[in-house]
């Protein structure tokens, strides 16, 4: 399913890049074009509106928000809400801002991305080139498992982590992310390695290279694009996670999303909408940057990652 989507996406990207094609261009202001571009621009504005409102709200002072209109640009630009969101916003008794959540998220995301990709790429490699008896059965279970609602497996994992003494720790959460990233990433790598020429693998075998030798010296250097896709997929996915963060960590190790939700939805105190919006942008910033930098690779990643739902 996903290899279909993946190959279709990549082929359309290539098609889009090739030179002019199709019928002769019509007049620029034909009724068709006005309708077409008009609709697209209106829809695009609708999609951009929340981002715009977030930014302008975060740059206003509270008095201006109370009097004004959420769509109007700030009369007086202030960065105070951003500073406050980063270093002073309160969750419960802690008032050290979102920076704590940010660094927690960094400490969760970096090892999770590395570990999950390392495991999944080796799995995919074993499944593609070193298939052993029963390997496909495990793989099918893994893929079907990707569709099981997380709620079904949350509690057994709590017990497992508690038994090995990692419940509530960042290490525990890293393991959880590696587990749940495995189905889609293994699929991604398996499909990629399967599509590589078989002769390459055979030649290396003839030359006496073993399992790890071939992986490290041939497969790894030749599959950098798929690693980039996997990194994009995992960084955004893990950064945006909320459920695992709230279940498997304690308040002082909460990832950014959980802390953000606690800051904004806390019932105590006066609501500071500008600080809330600044905090919201800060949390969305990392995946947004990844998205805007990665461009078409992101599309490839989600076409593959969409299986995860």
């Amino acid at each position: 399913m996903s290899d279909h989507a993946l190959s279709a996406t990549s082929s359309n990207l290539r098609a889009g890049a090739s030179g002019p094609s199709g019928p002769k261009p019509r007049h620029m202001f034909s009724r068709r074009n006005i309708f077409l571009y008009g609709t697209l621009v209106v829809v695009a504005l609708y999609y951009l509106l929340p981002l715009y409102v977030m930014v302008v709200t975060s740059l206003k002072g509270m008095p201006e928000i109370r009097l004004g209109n959420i769509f109007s640009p700030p009369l007086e630009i202030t960065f105070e809400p951003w500073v406050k969101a980063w270093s002073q916003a309160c969750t419960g008794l802690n008032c050290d801002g979102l920076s704590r959540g940010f660094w927690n998220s960094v400490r969760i995301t970096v090892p999770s991305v590395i570990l999950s990709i390392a495991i999944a790429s080796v799995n995919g490699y074993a499944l593609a080139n070193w298939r052993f008896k029963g390997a496909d059965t495990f793989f099918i279970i893994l893929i079907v498992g990707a569709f099981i609602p997380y709620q079904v497996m949350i509690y057994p994992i709590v017990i497992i982590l508690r038994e090995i003494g990692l419940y509530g720790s960042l290490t525990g959460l890293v393991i959880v992310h590696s587990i749940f990233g495995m189905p889609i990433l293994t699929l991604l790598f398996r499909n990629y390695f399967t599509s590589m020429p078989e002769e390459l693998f055979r030649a290396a075998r003839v030359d006496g290279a073993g399992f790890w030798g071939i992986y490290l010296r041939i497969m790894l250097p030749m599959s950098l694009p798929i690693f980039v896709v996997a990194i994009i997929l995992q960084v955004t996915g893990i950064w945006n996670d909320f459920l695992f963060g709230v279940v498997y960590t304690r308040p002082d190790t909460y990832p950014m999303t959980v802390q953000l939700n606690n800051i904004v939805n806390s019932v105590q105190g006066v609501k500071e909408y500008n600080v809330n919006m600044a905090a919201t942008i800060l949390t969305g910033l990392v995946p947004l940057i990844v998205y805007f930098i990665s461009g078409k690779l992101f599309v490839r990643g989600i076409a593959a990652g969409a299986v995860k739902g």
Partner: protein
Amino acid sequence: MSKSERPSQLFRNLNAKVASIPMILTAMVVFVGGTAWTVLYSFTNSKLLPRLNFVGLEQYYRLWATPRWLISIENLLIYGVISLVFSLVIGFLLAALLDQKIRFEDTFRTIFLYPFALSFIVTGLVWQWLLNPDFGVQGVVRSLGWTSFDFNPLYNSSIVIYGISIAALWQGTGLIMCLMLAGLRGIDEDIWKAARVDGIPMWKTYLFIIIPMMRPVFITTLVIIASGIVKVYDLVVAQTSGGPGIASEVPAKYVYDYMFFAQNLGQGFAASTMMLLSVMIVIVPWAYLEFGGRKRV
């Protein structure tokens, strides 16, 4: 390999087996074992701690007699129908518009897809702000002079789930558009030429030729949307926390709250087993079509 003696079956391919240990553990212990464990314990009266004290289907009877669960299911159905219909329709229409060999296609696609990069928490909080009755859309329209204007979905329990759906559609339609666009690009250009030669209007070509040809893409998309619907959790937590009252509760939140707040594990397990059941109803026929069909060929 060159030795005359073949190593035993177990040690053949040993490195591959060792390397696959994490996968095997995940598949067997977490996915199969964890699921079986939860289903088994859903037949017990576990409260604070899981205990094997079987009470038959009692948790399920209690579940289906709990108003909060019934509201959760109703919300999930409404949310599900809205997500399916609107994301398919909007996603397809946007893809069709982008497929007209337009300029700035990349720019438009980037704009339609960026919300998908954001988490549900961020999405929920932005839309909570936009739909804020005093400062958001309602407040702005009222301040323009239309004082009786009423658009306050997040604080009205009869329509709150629609307010959540608005945010979900904003976040998710870009993905559907991308999948549809990939599908459209997979259609042979000659089909379009043939339709044009025959003078078939464009909308008819889409409706009767292109869409039937894109059946596999639609099925894939359907499975993706459906499995996402059942999991909806973060969005509700961020946007309404299940409120007002319990009007926007969803099953995933029911499970979490019973497991970790109400300390009623049995209820949580029973509810999560029901979620599993509903996913299976969607997945099993699809998997049968997808994998069962391939074997027959």
